């Protein structure tokens, strides 16, 4: 009764042999030759003007470097496709109709250690940086970067509720970020309210705007929803620019009160934070406090999302993403479900916004353009929709890598003095996106963790399951 093996050993052997080193080298060499040929007219000569005269400068070194890169990439591609063809040709002999007792996937193995590890690093980050950099003021750049990344992690997690869980494509998320930021800026400068009162207020106001956006788009899905949310984001920004009486227009609102340590200001004088705790005054105290503040806010977002996923409303969000008609016929009020998703997602955007305002001390409509929305959405999509840890990793990569790029000074040695790697940021961003689409079309972590786990985990990779059709 043994089912015949799907591939015979002869076939397997044939596949292994497809990685023919000679052929791969030959093909790579041919590609490199074409590149070199193309680079003769495009790259090899450069005209330089000096006064009235025009000089022709040759750049053979650059052409050679590019050719070498193309050769290497082509060869790597050959090796990659060959190994993939081998893997595909040797499927496991499991019958599809048998219940699957799959081993926990690699992701599940990793996530067991990765989450405490990430959390530990995030908590100890200022201390680590202090120890590495050897001083408070020296570590400022890194802590600022940490704050920036955590802000995007929080925004990503907030948007993940709307896009990842409820499946509502929102291109105007930055609007709620703006609402939160302006709420704090206006309430604190006009009424003198403290940050700790404004924070929940900003969240409530943003949630309210989330519902306002939610009502007209209840019947929309997918592309149409994306267009309307995009317009909504722009409307908010244009209102902020043009309603000069209230928002001070494009000039923005400055001198927004700084955050206090639960009432104790971070000032040098009497009653300041440093004096109260017997420390030597440093502006870094405030920065480190802000770091922990955004860490707590981000973790709160994560905690609430994880809890909500286990509640009926969270399950209803996910069911809504999978199949709206089935949802309705199971007695789920899709109107309320969508509105709560918009409102709760917007609320976290509002929290992040008021944090942004208190950190910068200055807000202007410039900070809330479409590119911000696009980056936050890219974080969610690249992270793997609905995956919390994936979103965090994507935020670190997308926000952190451009900063790393800034520091790759050794590339100047290769490409010459005038080379600024930071100029290639968007190019690399695009290349990264394309690469993601090819290799991980469902995001870095496409696994969806079940919200209920019975006894032991059995996993079939989420990538085997098609998305629902609404």
């Amino acid at each position: 009764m043994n089912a015949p093996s799907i591939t015979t050993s002869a076939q397997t052997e044939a596949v292994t042999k497809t990685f023919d080193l000679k052929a791969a080298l030959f093909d790579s060499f041919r590609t490199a030759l074409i590149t070199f040929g193309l680079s003769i007219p495009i790259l090899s000569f450069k005209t330089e003007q000096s006064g009235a005269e025009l000089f022709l400068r040759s750049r053979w070194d650059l052409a050679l470097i590019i050719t070498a890169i193309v050769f290497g990439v082509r060869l790597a591609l050959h090796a990659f496709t060959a190994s993939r063809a081998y893997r595909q040709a040797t499927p496991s002999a499991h019958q599809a109709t048998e219940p699957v007792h799959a081993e926990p996937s690699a992701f599940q193995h990793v996530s067991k250690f990765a989450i405490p590890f990430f959390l530990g690093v995030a908590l100890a980050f200022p201390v680590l940086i202090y120890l590495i950099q050897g001083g408070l003021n020296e570590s400022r750049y890194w802590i600022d970067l940490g704050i920036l990344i955590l802000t995007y992690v929080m925004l990503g997690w907030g948007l993940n509720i709307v896009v990842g869980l409820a499946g509502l494509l929102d291109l105007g998320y930055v609007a709620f970020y703006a609402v939160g930021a302006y709420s704090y800026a206006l309430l604190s400068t006009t009424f003198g309210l403290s940050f700790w009162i404004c924070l929940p207020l900003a969240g409530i106001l943003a949630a309210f705007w989330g519902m306002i956006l939610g009502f007209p788009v209840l019947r929309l899905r997918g592309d149409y929803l994306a267009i309307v949310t995009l317009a909504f984001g722009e409307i908010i920004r244009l209102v902020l620019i043009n309603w000069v009486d209230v928002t001070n227009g494009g000039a923005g609102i400055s001198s927004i009160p700084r955050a206090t340590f639960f009432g104790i200001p971070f000032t040098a004088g009497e009653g300041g934070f440093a004096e109260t705790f017997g420390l030597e005054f440093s502006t870094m105290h405030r920065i480190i406090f802000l770091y922990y503040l955004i860490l707590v806010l981000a973790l709160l977002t994560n905690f609430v999302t994880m809890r909500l996923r286990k509640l009926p409303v969270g399950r209803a969000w996910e069911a809504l993403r999978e199949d709206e008609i089935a949802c309705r016929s199971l007695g789920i009020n899709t109107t309320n479900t969508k509105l709560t998703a918009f409102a709760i997602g917007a609320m976290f955007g509002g929290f992040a916004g008021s944090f942004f305002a208190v950190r910068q001390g200055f807000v202007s409509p410039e900070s809330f353009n479409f590119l911000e929305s696009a980056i936050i959405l890219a974080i969610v999509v690249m992270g793997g929709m609905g995956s919390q840890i994936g979103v965090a990793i994507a935020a670190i990569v997308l926000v952190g890598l451009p900063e790393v790029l800034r520091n790759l000074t050794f590339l100047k040695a290769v490409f010459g003095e005038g080379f600024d790697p930071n100029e290639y940021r968007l190019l690399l961003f695009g290349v990264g996106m394309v690469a993601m689409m090819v290799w991980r079309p469902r995001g870095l972590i496409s696994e969806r963790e079940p919200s209920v786990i019975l006894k032991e985990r059995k996993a079939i990779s989420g990538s085997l399951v098609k998305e629902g059709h609404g």
Partner: protein
Amino acid sequence: MTAAASIQQTALNAGRQPLLSVRGVKTYYGNIIALKGVDMDVHEGEIVTLIGANGAGKSTLMMTIFGNPRAREGTITYQGRDITKMPTHEIAHLSIAQSPEGRRIFPRMTVFENLQMGASINGMAHFDQDLERVCTLFPRLKERLQQRGGTLSGGEQQMLAIARALMSRPKLLLLDEPSLGLAPLIVKQIFDIIKELNEKDGMTVFLVEQNAYHALKLAHRGYVMVTGNITMSGTGKELLNDPQVRAAYLEGGH
């Protein structure tokens, strides 16, 4: 004998108010008329089947009962209550459950989570009992509780769709083509389960089917639909033996 049974059944139903009654229902898709005034009754404890060719309007009638699309004319009454204008999700709260066409399970959620979704109407009050019950009905699902819905085979997905509908403890179960695309053996299993639900639990079932032979054999009563109109009705056996029905739906195919 058949006629006697039919008369008996009709006599039995005459005195009672039907559980679900559809009167003069007209449904449109834009300007196109899909249902041209349908009258139909489902009495408590019955299995009623609706057969007809592709595009006759069977699924439209089923969806119209659930308010999506809405009937433009006519009334639909359930337990004496007019539900014609009620939103779909509220209808689902009236102990009617539906297993829509094409299964429509939640593919990325596990079987267990799918069943939880089915129980969300009664607030998971007797979830464990109901889970136990559907697991006895569908032992295949029990083995696969932790598996994602989308990784199940077609027959298992159909079982899951029915099981999910049962989780809300419905009085009336609406099934749209449960045999669609399934192997004969699995079709038989599913029809046996429908019969068991009706006989043991007294569940009322309204079954829309292409598989006319099986459906009419199982059902107490049946309706035949042709291009938006009910053209024939009677007991399952009557329809099975009717020469017109035989010619149109039974011979040469099934």
